[in-house]
């Protein structure tokens, strides 16, 4: 097991981030773009290697484990490992980041800073998905915050400072709660290692021993809030629209594509397995929160006039499915939630790229000022329609499979509440079609007709959009391919949780 492939995987982006800084000043613009692209490619390759490494690993538990003592005083270990769930999300991260690095091709404002922050962010994200020591997990979680603050803050839109500080404060407040919970666990049980804690929970039927149910629920809430801010679910979602509207296109892609999945991953890896009983008792509240996220965000999206804000709210709505699926504690629910993470992880970057393409040309995102773009830019129109219908949940595309599986799963545990969620499908259809019609159909105002300013989608942009479309289609028609990666481990985790939570 001595392979240190995992360390390599997250070191490549960090090394790239430093390398970019050393690029000579005058050719800064062109050179660091390429460094960024090559590093992202290398990272993607590394994740593929991790995938094959993982598939060759037989026997339960985590693959490619690297475990070394790090800080003896606090029994913190440099403990990395992957299972099906992490591999799937690692692949998603590197794939979306590859698209992101391509999309950040013409960043003029101090490119060296931008690309080094970009790669630092990538390193942080990859680290989060493979850390098995809770302290290391927290470390990566925070490392990722800093570059995101600068990326939104410096290269963002007009109100970027406000959006950046809001993003930073929200996530920091959440992670501070998580830190308290992590330290409490360490105090009571003396370990930061996730596998050990899960084993403890399995052995004693819950952390903190008998009679500490109140503390267990408090800790679960701490974890849940920290991750719900990231997901984001209903009460904590207000940072997302601002962050998205102000972030530059490639960063919105990564923000939507990967950062939101960390919340879900955290719930799957830590919140539910650590406190199954608390999860069961709070099940109904979580479902209600998810329902509000789905339906509320869909309605708010309908009233938006800024294209990007609309897509942001639709992300909130779709991510509501993740918490809904997880709360149902059924095989379909869990698999559906994970599938929604992967599906949304490919569809939303595509949508943000589409918004980015038109923003780069028109320099505004006001829905009412667009019209008939499908005729002015045909291929762009087709791709946009594809993205919109994928996000709408049209069958033969990945969105549909995820929604249906989550519905089937959550119906078994919360029949009446799930019916409320189906309303979301109609509202989503409504606002997306209204947008499609406002922006792409109808008559084309003169300004969008001249080819000079509004050329059709360029080869580079195609290189970003088409792979995402292909994956969405593949995941829609043959879902078992993607699902087989994480199904085994995810259901193993679910069995563990259900055994203790006492759910039928």
């Amino acid at each position, binding site marked *: 097991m001595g392979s240190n492939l995992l360390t390599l995987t997250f070191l490549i982006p960090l090394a790239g981030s430093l390398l970019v800084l050393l690029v000579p000043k005058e050719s800064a613009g062109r050179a660091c773009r390429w460094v960024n692209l090559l590093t992202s490619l290398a990272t993607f390759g590394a994740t593929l290697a991790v995938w094959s490494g993982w598939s060759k690993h037989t026997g339960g538990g985590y693959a490619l484990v690297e475990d070394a003592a790090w*800080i*003896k*005083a*606090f029994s913190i270990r440099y403990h990395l490992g992957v299972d099906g769930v992490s591999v799937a999300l690692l692949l998603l991260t590197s794939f979306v980041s590859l698209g992101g690095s391509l999309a950040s091709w013409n960043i003029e404002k*101090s490119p060296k800073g931008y690309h080094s922050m970009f790669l630092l962010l990538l390193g942080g994200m990859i680290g989060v998905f493979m850390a098995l020591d809770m302290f290391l997990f*927290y*470390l990566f979680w*925070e*490392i990722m*915050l*800093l570059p995101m*603050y*600068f990326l939104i*803050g*410096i290269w963002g839109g007009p109100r*970027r*400072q406000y959006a*950046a*500080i809001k993003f*930073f*404060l929200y996530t*920091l*407040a959440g992670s*501070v*709660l998580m*830190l*308290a919970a992590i*330290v*409490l666990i*360490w*105090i009571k049980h003396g370990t930061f290692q996730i596998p050990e804690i899960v084993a403890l929970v399995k052995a004693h039927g819950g952390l903190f021993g008998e009679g500490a149910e109140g*503390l267990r629920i*408090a800790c679960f809430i701490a974890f849940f809030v920290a991750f719900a801010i990231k997901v984001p679910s209903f009460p904590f979602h207000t940072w997302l629209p601002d962050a998205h509207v102000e972030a530059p296109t490639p960063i919105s892609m990564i923000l939507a594509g990967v950062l939101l999945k960390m919340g879900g991953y955290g719930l799957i890896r830590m919140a539910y397995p650590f406190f199954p009983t608390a999860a069961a008792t709070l099940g109904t509240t979580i479902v209600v929160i998810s329902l509000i996220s789905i339906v509320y965000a869909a309605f708010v999206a309908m009233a938006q006039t800024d294209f990007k804000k609309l897509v942001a709210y639709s992300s909130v709505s779709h991510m509501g499915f993740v918490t809904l699926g997880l709360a149902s504690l059924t095989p379909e629910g869990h698999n559906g939630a994970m599938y929604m993470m992967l599906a949304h992880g490919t569809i939303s970057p595509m949508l943000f790229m589409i918004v980015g393409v038109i923003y780069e040309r028109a320099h505004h995102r006001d829905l009412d000022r667009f019209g008939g773009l499908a005729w002015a830019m045909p291929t762009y129109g087709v791709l946009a329609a594809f993205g919109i219908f994928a996000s709408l949940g049209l069958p033969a595309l990945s969105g549909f499979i995820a929604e249906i599986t989550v519905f089937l799963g959550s119906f078994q545990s919360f029949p009446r509440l799930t019916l409320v969620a189906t309303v979301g499908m109609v509202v989503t259809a409504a606002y997306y079609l209204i947008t499609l019609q406002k922006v792409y159909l109808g008559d084309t105002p003169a300004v969008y007709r001249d080819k000079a300013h509004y050329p059709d989608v360029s080869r580079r942009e195609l290189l970003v959009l088409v792979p995402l479309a292909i994956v969405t289609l593949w995941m829609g028609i043959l879902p078992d391919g993607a699902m087989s990666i994480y199904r085994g481990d995810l259901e193993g985790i679910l069995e563990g949780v259900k055994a203790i939570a006492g759910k039928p």
Partner: protein
Amino acid sequence: MTALGALLPSILLTAGVLAVLFADAAAKGRRPLLLPWISGTALVAVAAVAVAWLAGDRLGDRVVLGALRMDAFTAVLTLFCAVAGLVSILATLVGDGNSRPGGEFHALVLCAVVGMSVLAAAVDMVTLYLAFELVSITGYVLVGMRRADRLANEAAMKYVLFGAVSSGLMVYGLSLLFGLAGGTSLEALRAAVVSGASSQPVFVAAVVLVFAGFAFKVSAAPFHFWAPDVYQGAPTAVAGFLSVASKAAGFAGLVRVVLALGAQPATAKEPIASFLPWGSPVAAVLAVAAVLTMTVGNLAACRQKDLKRLLAYSSIAHAGYMLMALAVWTPNAMSALVFYLVTYLFMNLAAFLFAGIVVRATGSSSIDSLHGLGFRNPWLAAAFTLVMLSLTGIPPMLGFLGKLVLFESVLREGWVWFAVIGLLNGAISLYYYALPLRRMYLEGVAEGAPPVRLAPGAAVLAAVLVLPVVAFFLWWSPLADWARTVVPSLRIGS
């Protein structure tokens, strides 16, 4: 450890004072760089002695001359204050204020360090009071050093008047304690407290009054009002010296006094989430003060427009966190306090150094003067950002470790709500620590702004301070273990 051995640091420093004064007189105005050299060597010598004490085990923690307890804690604090003094002197050469101070400046700094090292070791009320006052009056003069500057004068006046009144309260409190203990030594006081003196109402009154004095010294609420005005009026290096050295000495003195007063540590330890352990009045006062100080520091800082005032409120907030450790009062918490003090030293000195450099370069200490610094001098801006984030407690930086160790010790005692308030306070602090970042990076650079040049000396000093802030993470456990060794010598509760 002979009496003379114990007094070695004070002797060296006093010799330094005399040497500086004579050199200044001899040089008659032609102020060579001799003066900083003399004071520098004196301080380095003292630091060396302290390190020798720590390395060797000859400390034997005996009480010397009836007033000084030479244990590891004293050695650490002496080393701490010597280093702080040295850095402050170097910072003055580099920062704002007159960069070629006269002999008096060096003399006063050395006297202050004498006071601090004695305060850290004092186990007798009289010595404690004297050392406390020595540190204060040197502070008053250092703040008022720039005689021509209206603001400096105003700051000095407020500082001296507020300080005098607070120490007046303290002396009155000490007099009452003297009555209870029947003797001036803290040992006698401890004996009295153990034999039930703490149940007397006058004891509580005395505790509150004594705490008033120490609250002034460590700028804890409600005696923190002087700090923002003084830090803004004083030269930045002096402000840095006050915020680190005199505060650390204040904490050391407070530990000694609480060691005596809080003989029974917070006995009533409900298992979890008991917010105010009314076990002993000392713990209650400290806990309330901690929460008050943290909140005041963080809330007020959010509205600041001036960099030095912001750093003042930030140091008040950090005093609040340190008071938390005192309120919890367990061996674990004490080692966490020492650990936090070390992290606080590096962070705060670096922050005030950078503030000094910026004020010197741009002439004004308002946060807006940082405009576009990120592009005008990337390395300085990057270092300043790292320090700011470390003060907030963002991981891989040093500040996070300090907070982690601190909150771990608080949580271990089951004070969950106390820890949560602290953590949330930390989160709020991001808002004002990010203000400078915003000015430096997020607002782009005005074309005409001149690039800010960093003097080589300042660069070296900055590097020395910032390096541990970032790299400390790698060898974190040695410091944690070492901090743990310091505590047993304090002989708490035995």
